[in-house]
Structure formats: C-alpha cells, structure tokens
C-alpha cells in the first residue's frame, strides 16, 4: 500500500531516479557472478566476457585437471562432515540453551556464535599454533576441526531460531501424555524443527565450502580444498577453467538459496 501514497507529492520526479540507482546497485552486486558464469562457457581461449561462442570445453578441462578435481572432492567431503557434525552439536546446544535464562542466556548466545564474531584470521592463527602443539598440524583432521568450528555458528543460529518457534507448552503436553524426554524430542520437537535443522546444515556446508583463510593456514600437506586450488590456479594460469570451477561453486550456492527458500523462506532465514 505504501507505493500508493502521495504523502510527499512529486513522486513522478523522484521515483525514476531512485529506480535507476537501485538497478545500478544490483548490477554492481551481480556483475562479477554473471561475468564468471558467462566466461566459463566461452568457446575461445581467453577468459573473456561476453564469451566468444558457446562451449563446454572448459568444464571438460576442469574435470581433466587432477588438482582441481581433487580440491572439489576434498571440499565436498569436508563440507559434508562439517554439516553433519555441526547440526548434531548445534541441536544439542540449542536444546540446552533453552533452559538457560536471563543474563546467562545472552552470554551463552555470544559464546556459541564466537567463531562468527572473531575475525576468521585470528581464529585460524590460533588454531594453526594449537594444532601444531597437539600434533595435528597440517592434517586433514585439523582442517576438518577448523571447518567445523567456523561453520558451527551458522548451524546453531538457524536451529535456535527453529527451536524458538516451538511453544514450550508442546513439550509439556507431550510429557503429560507420558512421553519421555527422548520420545518428546524424537516425536514432537525434531519433526517441527527439521526445516531449521536442514537449513543449518546447508549454511554450514556452504560456509565450509567457501572458507579460505582457515584452509590456507591449516591445509594438510598436498591436500587442497577447491578455493585453495582455485587461488593457486588463478595465480599461475589465468584460464577459463577457473571460471568453470567458480561457476560450479556459484551453482551450489544458488541451489542452497533455493533450498533455504523452500524450507523456511528467505525472509525468515536472513
């Protein structure tokens, strides 16, 4: 209804100028992504936008490059483990958080989202030293721990938001009908928060898939994640293969956004 008002008059002059500004800003936001996707389909030899002809040659090239494919597989593997572990730990933490009240509740929230609040670089450095100390330096387990730590807040925030939507009275009703704590969780709470849990898993996975700094400092010898492999590739050979790799990553995030919209709606998620 707001666009119907004439509260301030002279809408006809202001609206088009503002509209143009908005369009330019969205172009700014999307330009790099559109360019990458476009460049990945080029039929030419150079990374160009607009692409010269259409071809899938650079995707073939991508899948023929052992280092990039290894990176992709590594990222998928680490992301999957991260999603599973963080959602499980976050559900437990979320359930515990519900019985914390007052001032402590605020501190608990801050504590649980700490990896989000402290710059990634600091956490990565701390972990680098610590893992070295406990002799997990430069190991896949160490890298996996870093990813779980950095992605945990995303899962936690989504799951807590879902838990908040479940009225306490449901738990009480379930208990009054004779359910044990575990039965109440499995039969009442979990089905209700499942979309939030799934969303948390998606966020954790995508965050892990995109992490760079933590991976750079913790990477095991000879084992690259896709962003690391891509960075190296970009530094030494600036070919459209990189655009193909990046497009795969973009598609993954668009898939994630679509899933989140289906599960809980973007407006509630962000």
């Amino acid at each position, binding site marked *: 209804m707001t666009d119907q008002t004439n509260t301030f008059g002279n809408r006809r002059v202001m609206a088009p100028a503002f509209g143009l500004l908005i369009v330019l800003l969205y172009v700014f936001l999307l330009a790099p992504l559109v360019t990458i996707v476009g460049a990945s389909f080029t039929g030419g030899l150079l990374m160009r936008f607009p692409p010269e002809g259409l071809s899938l040659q650079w995707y073939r090239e991508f899948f023929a490059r052992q280092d990039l494919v290894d990176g992709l597989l590594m990222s998928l593997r680490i992301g999957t483990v991260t999603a599973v572990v963080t959602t499980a730990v976050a559900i437990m933490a979320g359930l515990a958080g519900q019985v914390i009240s007052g001032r402590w509740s605020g501190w608990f929230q801050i504590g649980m989202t700490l990896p989000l609040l402290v710059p990634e*670089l600091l956490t990565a450095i701390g972990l680098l030293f610590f893992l070295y100390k406990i002799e997990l330096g430069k190991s896949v387990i160490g890298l996996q721990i870093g990813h779980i730590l950095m992605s945990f807040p995303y899962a936690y925030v989504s799951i807590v938001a879902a838990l908040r939507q479940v009225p306490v009275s449901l738990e009480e009703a379930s208990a009054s009908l004779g359910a044990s704590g575990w039965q109440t969780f499995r039969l009442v709470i979990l089905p209700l928060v499942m979309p939030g849990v799934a969303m948390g898993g998606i966020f954790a996975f995508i965050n892990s898939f995109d992490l760079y700094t933590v991976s750079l400092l913790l990477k095991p010898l000879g084992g690259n994640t896709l962003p690391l492999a891509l960075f190296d590739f970009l530094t030494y050979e600036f070919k459209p293969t990189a655009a193909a790799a990046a497009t795969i990553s973009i598609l993954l995030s668009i898939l994630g956004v679509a899933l989140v919209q289906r599960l809980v709606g973007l407006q509630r998620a*962000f």
Partner: protein
Amino acid sequence: MTRGARLRLLLALPAVALIFVFMVLPITNMVEMSFRTLGTTAPFGDSYTTGHYSRILSDGYYWQVLLRSLVTALLVTLLCLLVSYPIAWHMSKAHGFKAVMLYALIASPLMTGVLVRNFGWMIVTALNGPLNETLLGLGIIERPLRLLFTQGLVVLALVHVFVPFMVLPINNALRNIPPALVEASSSMGANRWQAFRDVILPLSFPGIYPGVILVFVLSIAAYVTPALLGGQMVSYMPTLIVAELNGTFRWPLGSALAIVLAVVTLICVAAFTLLTAKLMEKSRA
C-alpha cells in the same frame, strides 16, 4: 532449576568443548606465542621477549601497513553503508514474490565464496573486460583503465563482498519502522527529506550499528581480497601476518602483528559504540 533442566544443560557440553578447546584456548595460546623469541629450527623459540611488540611499534613500515588497513576498512565500511542503504530501503518496501527475489539477489552473493566473487572482479576489470569496454563505448574514457592490482579495486571488491552484511540488518530495521511514523511526520509538515532525516534514519540505527561493526571488523581482517587483487607490491595487515606465518615462519612476530590488529579493531569498535551509545539508546524502540 529442575533436575531435568540441569541434565539438559549437559547437552551443551560438545558445543562448549568445541568453542573452548579449539577457539578460546588457541587464541589465548596465540597471546603467549606473541611473547616467544624467534626460533632457528622451529617456527618459534623457547624463551620469552616483548621485543616483537617494541619492534612493531617502532618500525614505520608496520605503522604504514596498519594505517593502510585501517583507512581501507573505514572506507569500505562507509561505502558499504552508502551502497547498502538504498538497497535495504528498496528491499524493505517489497512484499510477496518480489521480496523473495530481492532476498535471493542479496543472499546468493552472500552464499558464494569470497574468492569466487573477487575472481569475478578480475574478469570484469581486465584491460579488455566488460567494464573497460563499456566505459570506452560510452566515451567516458579514452584508453582502458588498469584496475587490477590497485588499492581501488581492493576497496571495490571488499565493498562488494560485505554489502549483504550491511543490507540485511538495515533492511530488518527499516521493516520494523511503522509506516504511520512517516505519515505522522508528514502530517506535521515534514517533507520527504525531513521525514528521512528525523524519523527513518535515526530509527534504522539499530540496523546500521551491527552492519557497520560487522563490515569494519571483517574488512580490516580480510585476507583473500588484498592477497588476490592487491598485487605483490602493497601489503595489508592480514597479508603481512599470513606471510610471517606461512612464508618466513616467524610465528611469534605474526602473532604479535595479529594481536596489534585485534586491539586496534577493538578500540575502533569501542569508540564507535561509545560515540553512538546515546543514539542507540534512543532508537531502540
């Protein structure tokens, strides 16, 4: 607290352990590391010194890098705010399908990795890339601009990376302002600009504040963008720190640099919070 509730608290153990063991301990450990001497065979030595801090504070080069990082972060934050406010405003007015599409437009870049988005700018700003072609075509420039590996591109790319972090909280704050408040101000004679200045801007502060803090903290510590787009010639604090850790293996010096950066960041955040405390108090409806 009932016995059941106390038992339920135990469920937090894995998460608390994760954060404590792999974050709180390591960062405390990093403070200790910053006072270690340099090692010859290992990345750090066995005895302690305050030498790294005095070296950082007395060396003009470190000051220069710190200042560059600080100015860059401030500039990025300011530009982010200017870019994000109109987007957030536009978004806050949308409903239904249009709102979903706009959220998707903001969320998709957010969920795409920093590296990928920065890489996009490499193509866009290439000498024969679409940006130069467009500007040449429009007759705005006569020869292609050399943008890659400049500080300007670092700022631009950082703004691009962090805009969603600013848009989302401001959008939420704007959505929480009842339209009747704007109508009320207009019924008292306020024009569009006055209503914005007196009502909307102050009441959106609860969204501006977290956006500004988040973008500042993230951009001053951002590593990927300056490393990829800044070129070899110019150092920022994060690239300098990573070089000490991964290149020269002087971990204590790297730690000291990281702590200096963290302290400077905290001081800035605290100053901003104090300066805006009164506005925040008022605008929290």
